[in-house]
């Protein structure tokens, strides 16, 4: 297992450097966000993996699966990214003066130590669980070796015949699914020279760690450290999420990219810096290159952002903001188009539509069973985390709702509505389809939902301080 490690590490470090340079070139003001450098490193990691997975596919189509070709293309990308970062560093003027948001004090004393210690312990326990699971299931669960890693094996080991992996005879392995995950794994196999299980394990582990890191760094940047630690705790405590991270499925990578897009978009709406919007578009684009559900997220994001901008600033602002968002998404969007138009067979959910679709759409019993399944699924996620958070929110009060939060909330709502529509019209048996996929769909949105929850609902110490403050003000009024 140790022989391919240097190649794999090189294949992981290169996207991170490309990501750091490009994320700086697009948005050079990371240091002006509270603890923004952590966010920069994390966004760069996800973006770098996404971008190299897109480039890998273009190289595959043009030149076939060969390390020299892949390496040459990636070194070219690295040079381009370095040039862009250098150009940005030289051109950079005085950044706009954006007043920092008021931030509550970080947790301190015994409570601060307990909270940090509990988060570290939760990370250690989920890390132990993940290492153990990777040891006894190094090829992942069923979808990993029947879909994602299988496709990677065709891309890596297929030689001139790599397109055989998209043969209609293999329709049951879903050859229409986008290739960010198989492409990233096959790319690492090219770097290491063999199809070692280390590559999908590291990619799966990387995206799981990235998601937790992005959630903590995102909430910390926009809301404060206490809320960030609680958000991280709740995500790590959602055992379903940790489990999906080690299954080597594409669901956690997708949830990570959705979260990154939501964090960057919320930061843009708060600060108005165009670079954040372009990066949010980039992450949404990479989500579309991860799973078909990511395409739905990209569509929902573009639609909600367009309507929001139109209502706030008219056609001009809508054009500028939508343009900036789609500019970021362009590299991935072009890659998805190339894949869908030239290689991917029809999707089973789309090609399965027919005369009975209208009847399915208007069947109230079907809709009711879908909504019931969604409610059950949401409340039961993890060990009932959403239910506990809903009770906590109802009791604690004192929410910090800002108008711009409507945008990410509407985006996630749009994706959920899309999922309901897919279930309504599914050509498969509805009960089977819900049973085998609903939990994974909820995992896609869960980290972003936690991000929004902890932006809005105060964490315990802050709620306690606010309550005591309100009580002493009331006492002062009466005395």
């Amino acid at each position, binding site marked *: 297992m140790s022989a391919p490690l240097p190649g794999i590490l090189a294949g992981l470090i290169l996207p991170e450097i490309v990501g750091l340079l490009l994320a700086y070139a697009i948005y050079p003001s990371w240091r002006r966000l509270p603890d923004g450098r952590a966010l920069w490193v994390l966004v760069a990691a996800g973006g770098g993996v996404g971008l190299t997975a897109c480039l890998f596919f273009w190289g595959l189509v043009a030149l076939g699966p060969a390390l020299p070709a892949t390496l040459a293309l990636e070194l070219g990308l690295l040079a381009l990214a370095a040039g862009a970062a250098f150009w940005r560093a030289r051109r950079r003027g005085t950044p706009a003066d954006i007043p920092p948001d008021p931030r509550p004090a970080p947790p301190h004393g015994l409570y601060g130590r307990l909270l940090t210690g509990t988060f570290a312990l939760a990370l250690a326990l989920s890390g132990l669980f993940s290492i153990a699971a990777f040891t006894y299931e190094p090829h992942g669960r069923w979808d990993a070796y029947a879909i994602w890693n299988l496709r990677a094996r065709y891309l890596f080991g297929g*030689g001139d015949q790599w397109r055989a992996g998209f043969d209609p005879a293999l329709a049951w392995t879903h050859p229409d699914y986008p290739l960010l995950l198989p492409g990233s794994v096959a790319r690492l196999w090219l770097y290491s020279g063999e199809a070692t299980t280390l590559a999908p394990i590291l990619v799966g582990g990387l995206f799981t760690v990235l998601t937790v890191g992005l959630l903590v760094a995102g909430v910390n940047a926009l809301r404060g450290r206490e809320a960030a630690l609680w958000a991280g705790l709740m995500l790590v*405590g959602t055992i379903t999420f940790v489990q999906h991270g080690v299954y080597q499925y594409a669901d956690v990578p997708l949830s990570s990219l959705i979260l990154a897009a939501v964090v960057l978009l919320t930061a843009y709406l708060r600060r108005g810096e165009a670079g954040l919007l372009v990066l949010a578009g980039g992450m949404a684009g990479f989500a579309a290159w991860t799973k078909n559900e990511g395409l739905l997220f990209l569509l929902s994001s573009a639609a909600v952002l367009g309507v929001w901008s139109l209502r706030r600033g008219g056609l001009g602002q809508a054009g500028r903001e939508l343009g900036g968002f789609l500019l970021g998404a362009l590299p991935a969007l072009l890659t998805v188009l190339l894949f869908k138009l030239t290689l991917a067979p029809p999707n089973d959910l789309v090609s399965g539509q027919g005369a009975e679709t209208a009847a399915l759409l208007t069947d109230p019993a079907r809709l009711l069973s879908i909504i019931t399944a969604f409610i059950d699924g949401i409340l039961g996620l993890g060990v009932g985390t959403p239910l506990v958070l809903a009770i906590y929110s109802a009791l604690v009060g004192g929410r910090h709702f800002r108008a711009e939060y409507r945008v990410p909330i509407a985006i996630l709502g749009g994706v959920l509505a899309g999922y309901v529509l897919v279930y309504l019209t599914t050509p498969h048996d509805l009960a089977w389809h819900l049973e085998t996929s609903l939990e994974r769909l909820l995992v896609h949105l869960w980290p972003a939902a936690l991000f929004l929850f902890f932006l809005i609902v105060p964490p315990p110490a802050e709620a306690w301080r606010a309550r005591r403050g309100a009580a002493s003000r009331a006492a002062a009024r009466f005395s």
Partner: protein
Amino acid sequence: MAGRFAHLRVILAIAILTLFTIIWMGMLLIFAVGGIQQAVADRGQIAGGGQAALFAAAGRRYLPLRPYLPIGEPVGYIADQPAEDSGYVRALYTLPPAVIVEGAACCDLAIGDFSSSAAAADFVARDVWRLSADLGDGLVLLERAGRTP
């Protein structure tokens, strides 16, 4: 009075969140210990069980088939095991870029994955397939009788 209730509500909210965190931390601990136990158990029986051993064995069994498989033409897969116990997915996983399809209706060539050489010979004797290559231990490449090579 209202202020006291608000105070109590915040205390209750914090208590619920704290209690919940303690509960799931306990569950995470159980998951981690369970995972380690399973990993250790799999290591102990690495020759016979465990996913890594299963896939390694599939590699040893199916890879010798590769030179016999056609390029750009699907190949069927027939086994004498029930579908859920068969090695179909592991054969598919081992043999890219070959396109292997479960069953044999599709194709003129099929992999025969039998529990023994005798079972493979028995199948060839009573069906419309003839033996194209015998890789031993019940693994054969079959050709539809009457197919023009």
